[in-house]
């Protein structure tokens, strides 16, 4: 019985299929049920499709202005949320005049009741024109649908097309209202498709080399991308386009000219690599730069592809000489420490093995908010027997896992961080990092250093807890069995499971 009904889930038995404990003799297809609709009232940690497209995919682009077509909330909450810095350098050698432009401004249409009744398209039109006037330096205008707009049916594509001609500047509409798809993953997909369909193949790069690559699905969280860029630069590989960390609008337009695409976040961005391969014949490989082992392996693969093996070896050697001794120190300190990784998606499989093999830690639990089947297969491959794998866990489950698996450290997001603190467990922000970057050789040292300093901080010794553990079901749940009769619940839950991976509406 690989699937586990947690104590806190006894009132929501459908959660059982989302919680899987690895056993080596299980059939390969035993993984948590995933990418299905969120169960109402389950206290899920997931976000929405709008968050997926603006918060993850497009928010990292340095030279575009964003117009959110929404009531005030979505605009407000979509502002200044993620740590992806940008440099002012543009591909044509010029400098973008406003520092970290992508983090600095957000526009919204601030929809009012009358707009909901009579339609908001006029206001959107005026707002985009205004964005153009206020930010003449922006190289494109991206506009986003939200729940209300999806319902009132404003034709965003038409207005984008019209204004592109009128303003002489590309206007791109992203149709990912919050309610579409099971999670933010849907927004990633819409972001990929929209950028591919509207931009890729529409411009030519100023120059090309035989070593041009696209680095896809790398968003430059806390400078991750710059670490990788340095390695590739030293190897003689040219980052023709980034998707979308520290990238400019134009770079996306000429992604079709690369010789190879490297897909870093394989959940949020394999879509566009697939599409570019299919239409333009640019092959792609999936890469992983977390930890020294994966980073070395992948630099070698890239080196081999371009006949730059020696150059790759040189980068690896130099970096290993630098970080090796430090990592030894941290390995000694982190030996045997138990870790629970709760990432949005891929970091749960990028980090599980490296933490064990390179730092001697033990990955006792992994979880993801929005991973799909392929990701869970990798997650399962890369953990030991007995490790629990959770899909879309909620705060109550999170608490139970901590009580039961007793991790010494949690890698999760800000919503979970302070909950972990209440249970006396340190937590490292793995979506936007603490003292990153965490990628590459030096980045892995940063992560090890943060983990070490969080676990060994003397504050944890000052915590005084009562010994009695919370008894689940006694304190939390009730014996109530409530009714929502007259509803086609069975039909609904069957439908949920049918949702295919990455389906687009």
């Amino acid at each position: 019985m690989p699937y586990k009904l947690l104590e806190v889930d006894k009132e929501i038995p459908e959660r059982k299929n989302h919680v899987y404990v690895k056993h080596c003799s299980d059939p390969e297809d035993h993984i948590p049920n995933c990418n299905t609709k969120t169960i109402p009232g389950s206290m899920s940690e997931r976000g929405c499709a709008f968050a997926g497209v603006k918060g993850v995919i497009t928010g990292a682009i340095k030279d575009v202005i964003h117009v959110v077509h929404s009531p005030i909330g979505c605009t407000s909450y979509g502002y200044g949320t993620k740590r992806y810095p940008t440099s002012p350098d543009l591909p044509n050698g010029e400098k973008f005049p406003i520092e970290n432009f992508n983090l600095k401004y957000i526009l919204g249409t601030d929809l009012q009741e009358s707009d909901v009744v009579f339609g908001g398209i006029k206001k959107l039109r005026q707002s985009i024109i205004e964005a153009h006037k206020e930010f003449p330096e922006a190289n494109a205008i991206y506009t986003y649908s939200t729940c209300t707009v999806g319902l009132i049916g404003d034709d965003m594509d038409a207005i984008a097309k019209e204004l592109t001609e009128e303003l002489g500047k590309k206007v791109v509409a992203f149709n990912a209202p919050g309610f579409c798809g099971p999670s933010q993953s849907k927004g990633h997909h819409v972001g990929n498709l929209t950028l591919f369909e509207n931009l890729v193949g529409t411009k030519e790069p100023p120059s090309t080399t035989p070593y041009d690559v696209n680095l896809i699905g790398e968003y430059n969280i806390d400078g991750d991308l710059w670490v990788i860029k340095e390695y590739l630069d030293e190897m003689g590989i040219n980052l023709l386009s980034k998707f979308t960390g520290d990238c400019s609008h134009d770079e996306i337009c000429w992604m079709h000219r690369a010789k190879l695409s490297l897909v870093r976040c394989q959940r949020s961005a394999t879509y566009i690599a697939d599409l570019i391969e299919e239409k333009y014949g640019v092959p792609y490989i999936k890469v992983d730069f977390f930890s020294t082992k994966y980073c070395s392996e992948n630099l070698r693969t890239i080196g081999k592809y371009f006949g730059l093996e020696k150059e790759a070896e040189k980068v690896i050697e130099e970096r290993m000489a630098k970080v090796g001794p430090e990592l030894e120190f941290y390995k000694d300190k982190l030996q045997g420490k138990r870790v629970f990784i709760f990432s949005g998606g891929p970091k749960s499989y990028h980090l599980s093995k490296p933490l064990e093999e390179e730092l001697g830690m033990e990955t006792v639990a992994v979880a993801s908010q929005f991973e799909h089947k392929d990701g869970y297969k990798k997650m399962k491959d890369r953990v030991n027997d007995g490790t629990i794998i959770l899909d879309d866990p909620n705060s109550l489950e999170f608490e139970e896992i901590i009580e039961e698996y007793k991790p010494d450290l949690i890698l999760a997001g800000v919503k979970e961080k302070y909950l972990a603190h209440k249970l006396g467990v340190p937590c490292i922000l793995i979506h936007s990092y603490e003292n990153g970057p965490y990628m590459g050789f030096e980045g892995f040292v940063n992560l090890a250093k943060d983990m070490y300093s969080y676990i060994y901080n003397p504050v944890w010794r000052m915590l005084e807890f009562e010994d009695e553990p919370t008894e689940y079901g006694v304190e939390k749940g009730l014996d109530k069995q409530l009714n929502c009769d007259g509803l086609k619940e069975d039909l609904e839950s069957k439908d949920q499971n049918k949702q295919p991976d990455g389906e687009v509406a």
Partner: protein
Amino acid sequence: MHQNKKFSVINPSKMCQPMGAVQALLGVNDTMPLIHGSQGCGTYMRFQLTRHFREPIEVASTSMSEKTVIYGGEFNLMKALKNVTEKQSPSIIAVTSSCLTETIGEDMEGIIEKFKEANLDQDLPIIIPISTPSYVESHVEGYNRTIKALVEHLAVKSVGNEKINIITGNISPADVREVKNILSDLNCENIILTDTSKNLDAPLSESALDLYKDGTTIEEIEDTANSLGTIALSKHMDSAAIYLEKQFGVKSISGPLPLGIENTDKFIGSVCKLGELEVPETIKRDRGRLIDAMVDAHSYNYHRKVAIFGDPDFVSGMTRFTCEMGMIPSVVCTGTKSKRFIEDIQIISDEKKVSPVILAGGDLYDMHREIKEVGADILVGNSYGASMAKEEDIPLFRVGFPIFDRLGAQRIFTLGYKGGINFVDQLTNTMLDYYYDEAGYEVSGDESEETIFEGYFAGEEV
């Protein structure tokens, strides 16, 4: 470089109604907010609240999806009510709407009735629907409607209780605590709507993970109908007070937020009048200490320009307070379009002979432009002001919501005489850090080497 914009909002200075609802509900005992909308709303709000308070925040969602949007959210709402009731078993589930469910015209009350009927034999939580469409007004109104919904559903007339109801509005837990301290100094029994002072600033313990064991109780909310009066500290959040007055004859007083001398005097005056109380020596002493602090600080603050943004009553209260300190409010901005706000600022302007640029329904982009125009030596507001302050090379004094780039947001303390003392000290020290040298002498802006140096290079810009 910039034209006068008219249509869009750029870097908003307000949030949506459901956020205000959740802020209000954080101070209610054993209560789960449930947002009837898409999963993103709940998550975004938890994200904002968690990074502000650095505390776990629970907000349930009905997680609406494409199909339920088309056929209505009945299944999702019933299912969420069932799950929250069975799992967390709160005393109250407060169901707020969202732009999504308001747009499809969801009958929340009807669905809740249906849920209750299907579970007649069960001991259900009290379920309160609150209409909070995100496309109407702002989080301030969401807060207002939530308090009103709580008293409408719960307040019951019985015997007089000699208490005073206080609607706090969205103020920090430390400020709620100070309001309670003042009332306790006055020997005034009270009901706080809503009391976040313990819920969001609690000692670390595992039990902090359960629903809030502190905060305003159902019994207290029921009892609001029997109080001597209600004081809404925020004029924009007085609907519940007005309701209680009309329905049960509980006297209602709107504002002002007790920031600084005059406003705190008014607040204490209102309490004393309602409760027929005398001002005790302790409070008189605190008032004297605040005046002492203001006098000590005057030379550093006098004629300094201050720009203030945030919720309307906070901004008007702060405008008055900084005037009392001898500062000059140059730009005052609130995200809500409010006539009351404009009136308040005009009254203060007339009294204090200042003429700040008033932005009611403005955003931070407007504000920044005005600061460039009329100048400011310090900015008072939330973390969203940080990049503006950096660009203008002025300090940001952080008060309000959200504050995610500093610690201790729940302990920011400005209300009453004591909060005033704290504010005067902190603000003046910030000015000293920025504009004075280590010997305590002012570093003259125009002549300093640094400025000349920067000016030389920055000359070409803009």
